[in-house]
């Protein structure tokens, strides 16, 4: 005991703060690099393509918040993405809402839907949780299919006006719209980064690691799980709403279960439980869909092969592998 008491605390303390500082510096550098990259991207790449990547990256980031940091595998995240996309498209087209309000409405509805579905799903754990989220998302799909007055049924909601931001700045031009999407993406990323590194995020990680232990410390685990579920659903909604404005389209594809699968794929390929992994994952998957489009149905096969390779060789995803190599959380 005496030995234990004489151990060197300052040394231990210093070690902790130094690593955290180093990691913080690295993350700041990545953020700045990413901001620069996003700013110059429309000059070197096709803006609509980059916007698509950013929308899906935000979607994957939201999903990763739930699975990577909350330990909850939702297999129905298309419901929040797709429903928000419909709400955003509908309000922009039929109510004439400005794009920022349309996007906000979609986000709020997705959060609300997340609160209802989440409170049902968190009563069960593991695979049962995943199955409930999938079943509820399928209900949303059939609702979308059966209410053509709202969703346009098989046609979807087409030619959604991009409108004028705050009623002032026209977004008809791709470049103008691009920077709005870039701001939404960066803001979403920063918010998620903050959530992960907040006191709330600490508790979520503890629950993910060992739920019974977190409960025995007095944390009401279910409330935290619901809170992170709602945040994730709302952010997935933000991605879906923005996507509807960019492509001027909301369709059944957005609520289909394969969309839920795609976001799982993006997150796993990029690196589950890493901050930046989902962005890389989204870039890889969206690029494949775009540039291999000429292969037709073979895209799915190529995607499948990549997924298998990822699971076999880099189980931690692209960013996960890099993070391990440099021994720093990314």
């Amino acid at each position, binding site marked *: 005991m005496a030995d234990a008491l004489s*151990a060197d605390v300052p040394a*231990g303390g210093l070690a902790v703060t130094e690593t955290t500082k180093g990691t913080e510096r690295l993350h700041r550098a990545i953020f700045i690099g990413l901001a620069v990259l996003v700013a110059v991207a429309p000059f070197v790449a096709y803006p609509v393509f980059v916007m698509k990547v950013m929308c899906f990256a935000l979607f994957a980031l939201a999903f990763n918040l739930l699975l990577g940091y909350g330990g909850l595998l939702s297999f129905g995240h298309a419901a929040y993405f797709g429903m928000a996309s419909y709400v955003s498209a509908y309000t922009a087209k039929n109510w004439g809402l400005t794009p920022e309000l349309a996007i906000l409405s979609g986000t709020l509805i997705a959060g609300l839907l997340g609160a209802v579905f989440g409170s049902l799903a968190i009563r069960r754990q593991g695979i049962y949780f995943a199955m409930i989220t999938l079943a509820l998302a399928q209900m949303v799909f059939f609702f979308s299919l059966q209410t053509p007055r709202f969703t346009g049924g098989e046609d979807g909601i087409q030619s959604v006006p991009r409108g004028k931001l705050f009623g002032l700045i026209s977004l008809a031009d791709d470049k103008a719209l691009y920077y709005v999407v870039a701001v939404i993406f960066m803001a979403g990323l920063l918010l998620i980064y903050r959530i992960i590194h907040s*006191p709330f995020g600490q508790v979520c990680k503890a629950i993910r690691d060992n739920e019974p232990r977190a409960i025995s410390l007095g944390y009401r685990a279910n409330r935290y799980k619901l809170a992170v579920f709602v945040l994730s659903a709302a952010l997935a909604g933000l991605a879906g709403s923005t996507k509807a404005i960019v492509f001027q389209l909301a369709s059944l594809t957005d609520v289909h279960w394969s969309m839920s699968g795609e976001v799982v794929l993006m997150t796993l390929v990029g690196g589950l439980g890493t901050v930046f992994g989902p962005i890389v994952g989204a870039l890889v998957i969206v690029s494949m869909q775009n540039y291999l489009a000429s292969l037709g149905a073979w895209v799915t096969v190529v995607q499948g092969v990549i997924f298998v390779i990822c699971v076999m060789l880099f189980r931690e995803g692209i960013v996960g592998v890099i993070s391990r190599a440099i021994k720093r959380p990314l």
Partner: protein
Amino acid sequence: MRGMSEDIILSTSGLTKEFAGFTAVNGVDLKVRRGSIHALIGPNGAGKTTCFNLLTKFLAPTKGSIVYNGQDITRQKPAEIARLGLVRSFQISAVFPQLSVMKNVRIALQRKRGDSFDFWRSEDVLKSLDAEALRLVEAVGLSTFADLPAGELSYGRKRALEIATTLALDPEMLLLDEPMAGMGREDVERIEALIRKVSANRTILMVEHNLSVVASLSDRITVLARGQVLAEGDYATVSKDPRVVEAYIGSGVGHAH
């Protein structure tokens, strides 16, 4: 002893747990005195762990009641009794494997803030807890590992970390589920000293197999066998009880360790 003003912090009456066709705990009346170290022992399958899980609310009793500090907690949820100051440890070392050793302890200290739903705030607000977390980490001899993910610690060190985490809550009563299970001799001595040290101003109820630890630490011992209380008293009394000796030999376990 009896008749003197007994200050009971935790008591059960007729505590019973039935699993399909099997009674694991059968009408247990337990009284734990405030400020004492109380051990729950018994051969394998005696119902110690079930009893423990009933007390910590991780299982719901079939019959009977549990009173803590004059409050009926029979139907309370596990997180709620932790908030009342009754905190448990786990038999399988329960750490948060991906969090650093220091953060494992800090997550318990964070409970002082009440609920932490503030997702918009930076975790820098928790920095004020770091010093105390490191002090607790040091107290269990883990200073050099403060920055390591808890999952990478050896078994004995995980147990030590778990105790530090539990102590961080400054609980009024500690329920320890086999604190020495799977530990090497050196670790046993250290944890034993630690338990004795933290027992000041606290009540401890522990399930433990290591009888030498039980003998040196406990003020009072309850022996369970086949889900029922077989004997109760201090170590000298209990260890001479022929029923206890028979129960241990009969189970083929003997005086383990």
